[in-house]
């Protein structure tokens, strides 16, 4: 279930979602909770940066970006972000009640004359079920601070082809989406996106959360012991709603779980 007070998609947001493949929600996180998020994020980075740098030195990880390890254990504010009422309602509209949260990444992208990632879709329409990502800026992200960018309409069936470009800003028809801290970008992962070049002196800090439809899942939950343990530990902290949102007691993730009844999703909701 989703909190009743969740904000729902308005006409304009529906149009943006269907036509362009993304919706920007300004002020999705603000005030007290934004401050908590920012301090938790920075504390987390400080606490775990050394280990990351070691991995970089050994050659096991890339220095092009840094993801906070197990953010949920670091602070509950990260959990609050996953069912943030300012975005969750829209996600339910776009995915339906049977939605499930797949995870959260707390990412720092250092300044660099090149981007850590090129233009790409995460998912392929013919191979994967619908996934949605929500990117929440944790610090102010001006255009030149490696803002998220998307090719409007590239999520549609038969869109493209899109060329390999040497310079990110040469991607035909792309749109750069800068935003203040607390801005959320909800985007369709079938669409082409990237992170532009960060030419400022500060890293770009953001959360990237992933959602999809439970009964469409075609991958098993990782059966690795540590993964199961982590899920079990985390479950202890979750309210029933959150347990449901994270897929607990909903089968093994192969879609065999009970499908939530009568809960439509975007495609069924053609108005």
């Amino acid at each position, binding site marked *: 279930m989703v909190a009743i007070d969740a904000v729902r998609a308005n006409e304009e947001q529906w149009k943006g979602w269907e036509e362009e493949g993304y919706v920007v929600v300004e002020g999705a996180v603000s005030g007290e909770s934004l401050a908590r998020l920012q301090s938790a994020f920075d504390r987390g*980075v400080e606490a775990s*940066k050394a280990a990351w*740098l070691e991995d*970089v*030195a*050994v*050659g*096991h*990880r*890339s*220095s*092009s970006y*840094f993801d906070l390890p197990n953010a949920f254990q670091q602070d509950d504010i990260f959990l609050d972000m996953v069912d943030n009422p300012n975005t969750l309602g829209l996600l339910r509209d776009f995915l339906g009640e049977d939605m499930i949260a797949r995870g959260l990444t707390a990412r*720092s992208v*250092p*300044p*660099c*004359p*090149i*981007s*850590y*990632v*090129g233009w790409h879709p995460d998912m392929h329409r013919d191979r994967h079920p619908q996934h949605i990502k929500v990117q929440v800026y944790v610090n102010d992200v001006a255009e030149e601070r490696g803002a998220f960018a998307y090719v409007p309409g590239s999520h549609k069936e038969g869109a493209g082809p899109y060329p390999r470009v*040497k*310079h990110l800003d040469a991607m035909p028809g792309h749109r750069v989406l800068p935003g203040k801290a607390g801005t959320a970008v909800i985007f369709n992962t079938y669409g082409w996106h990237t992170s532009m070049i960060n030419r400022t*002196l500060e*890293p770009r800090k953001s959360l990237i959360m992933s959602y999809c439809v439970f009964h469409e899942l075609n991958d098993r939950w990782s059966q690795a012991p540590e993964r199961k343990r982590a899920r079990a530990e985390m479950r202890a902290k979750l309210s029933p709603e959150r347990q449901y949102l994270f897929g607990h007691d909903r089968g093994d993730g192969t879609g065999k779980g009970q499908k939530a009844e009568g809960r439509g999703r975007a495609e069924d909701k053609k108005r």
Partner: protein
Amino acid sequence: MRSERQRKAWLTVAEVLVKIDAHVHVFSKVTAEFPREANDQLPAEDEAPVERLLKTMDDTGVDRSLLIQIGGTSIEHHAYLLHCLSTYPERFLGIGRIPDDVDDPVDHMDRLAETSGVIGFRLFGLGGPEPLQPVDIREFRTYPIWKRAAEMDYVIWLYPRSIDVHLVPFLLEAFPQVRVGYNHLMVSPGTENFQMENGRPRIETRMPPAHRQFVRGMSRFENVRALISGQYAFSNEAWPYADLRDWQHYLARLFGADRLMWGSDFPFVTEEYGDEAGYGGQVRLVEEVYDEWTGEERGMISGGNAEGFLRFK
């Protein structure tokens, strides 16, 4: 049917018939005339004399090669390299080294490049801040080296460690006119997974490397060339190192056939170092890896590109 020559004309690439080995080492025993540092990799009694290299090249049809300094960074440590360059100017060009703690790197560079066939310098560490720290390239220890390379058209022979890779794009952007040869498949290995095996490097690293995003991004800088070399050190398989094939084709897609250069890493690929395929295997490697490419493209990788980029005469 179009001739190779005609094809080249359309592609306007350099003459591709020449074979050039863009990464080899020669060294002598430690002597008064040719002092050098001795260590596990290079015991004082070991030697890889230039005559042996020349014979190996002649036996395998390699015309020229680029000698990379090994066995120390001070001027006197370069004695054998300089000797080889001045003795066989028509066969070799050279890459020198610079001590990390040298007071005046510019003077060091100019002195080495002045009279000999030294066309550039090899860099490992770049002397900049760690990831997530503010970056000002003017504060890098190696900034004066890059600046001088830009002024004098020296080549930078780059083999950074993984902890330094994030600094490279800043330098490439600031010095677009500097020719950079990025060593050993652009795998910038980590510090802790170097070992010696049969007296040659054995580097445990995952492929594709963790910093592949950087590799993709750096390919847009026009003056970077990727060295198709060092496979033996990274591969978990015997020649032709099938586990590296995908990565080598990825590099080819990024850089195009005209921005790859083959190098052998002689002498560490010879039988003396327990390499079964030997130098001949290295010479055949480009053909083996890029088997679906045209002969002309393979020719560019095996020498045509190095001839133009390094200006072999």
